[in-house]
């Protein structure tokens, strides 16, 4: 049934995550992209993406994050950057750095690119290349150098997990050498390939305990030069992470095939009916679609969230996690210590193997050319 009731809580979105493609030259086993990747033939065309960017700005979007897969695999990236920047959006490129030559970057910056978010898989080439499944590390160092030379702000993003968590000190040092303005040390969220590899990726309690004082000290020491954002593994927390600052409240995601998602991982919620930009306009989807209204506001909240004082902070947690672990996307996030399903998480933690199993690398058959 379509929910068309007036939704007084819906404000215009501030940001759009545009997943231009799922194609990627890397094979990160933690990748949050779905197991069923959108193929090249099913990607939106250049004109369709240009139209989506226009509709997004019209709707109120001010930040456009160009991501994927690897956004540089799209040869029309320059015109998309131009369109978003010309409309007054803050344009952010989320990239593995492969294919980010000085020449290409100079062009993108001339067209209005404002910020680069570069992922790094490990502190040294050997570890990083093993996790990426290709020799990517050296390219990333070069890409970072190009970003610095053009003097635009750089965020380094590291996804933490069991195979690199012990490297936090060296990862911080690496980000400093790369000249990062910000460093995101984000523990793996278990969707897509990350979920498939959960038992191998789950950090141990000892790893978390060891990392905590290191990150705290570095955050303090680097306060004025490099902002550090540390996101701990939520399975180990008593409370869940806030879901998108509220479902359908600030951001939308457009998948490579034009599906519009309230959260980047929402395609994992198979009970959700997704709309596509090919058949419905973005504003209509944002304000009136079933998917965006399903968990908007507070009316849908289950017990124990309904009467909880933290509901304004975490909105009952992550809908995708609730669905993936309990089968009900409308349940309290099982990470929450107040959830009747918290036992599921404790069981997963208790069964973390002493020797991590082999990682299943993300499969890609297509190279960036």
């Amino acid at each position, binding site marked *: 049934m379509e929910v068309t009731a007036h939704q007084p809580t819906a404000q215009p979105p501030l940001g759009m995550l545009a997943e231009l493609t799922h194609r990627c030259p890397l094979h990160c086993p933690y990748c949050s992209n779905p197991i069923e990747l959108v193929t090249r033939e099913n990607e939106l065309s250049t004109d369709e993406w240009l139209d989506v960017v226009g509709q997004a700005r019209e709707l109120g979007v001010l*930040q456009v994050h160009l991501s994927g897969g690897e956004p540089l695999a799209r040869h029309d990236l320059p015109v998309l950057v131009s369109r978003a920047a010309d409309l007054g959006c803050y344009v952010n490129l989320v990239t593995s750095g492969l294919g980010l030559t000085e020449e290409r970057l100079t062009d993108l910056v001339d067209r209005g690119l404002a*910020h680069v978010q570069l992922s790094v898989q490990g502190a040294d080439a050997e570890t990083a290349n093993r996790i990426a499944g290709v020799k990517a590390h050296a390219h990333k160092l070069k890409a970072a150098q190009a970003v610095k030379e053009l003097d635009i702000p750089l965020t380094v993003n590291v996804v933490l997990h069991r195979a690199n968590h012990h490297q936090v000190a060296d990862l911080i040092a690496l980000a400093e050498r790369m000249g990062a303005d910000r460093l995101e040390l984000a523990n793996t969220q278990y969707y897509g390939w990350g979920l498939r590899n959960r038992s191998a990726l789950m950090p141990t309690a000892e790893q978390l305990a060891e990392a905590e004082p290191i990150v705290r000290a570095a955050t303090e020491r680097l306060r004025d030069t490099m902002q550090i954002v540390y996101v701990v593994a939520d399975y180990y927390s008593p409370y869940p992470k806030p879901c998108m600052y509220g479902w359908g409240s600030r951001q939308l995601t457009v998948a490579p095939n034009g599906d519009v998602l309230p959260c980047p991982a929402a395609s994992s919620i198979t009970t959700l009916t997704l709309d596509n930009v090919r058949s419905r306009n973005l504003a209509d989807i944002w304000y009136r679609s079933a998917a965006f209204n399903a968990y908007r506001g507070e009316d849908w909240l289950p017990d124990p969230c309904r009467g909880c004082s933290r509901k304004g902070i975490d909105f009952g947690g992550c809908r995708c996690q609730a669905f993936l672990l309990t089968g009900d996307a409308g349940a309290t996030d099982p990470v929450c210590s107040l959830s009747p399903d918290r036992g599921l998480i404790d069981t997963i933690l208790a069964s973390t193997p002493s020797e991590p199993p082999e990682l299943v690398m993300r499969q890609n058959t297509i190279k960036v050319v």
Partner: protein
Amino acid sequence: MSMIGLDSAPRLRRGVRLTYDKTRETHVLLFPEGVLVPNKTAAAVLELCDGVATVAEIAAELGRRYEGVRVEDVRNVLTRLEERRVVEWK
């Protein structure tokens, strides 16, 4: 936190952009991690922060446009914006 000097020339920090948003009918400050909505006074000051004009000059220019602009208020606004990592000066 020290107040900005009268002869400093503030400018937007690298990576921060100020634009006018038609949808919300307000100025907005855009940066990598988010969006800030400056109030009318802050927006008027920020529009004049080009890294060349000094605080004294910015206050004088605002004084020509609006009634009752005090240089102390301009300094206060800029000091707050520096704390929020929106502007910087040498």
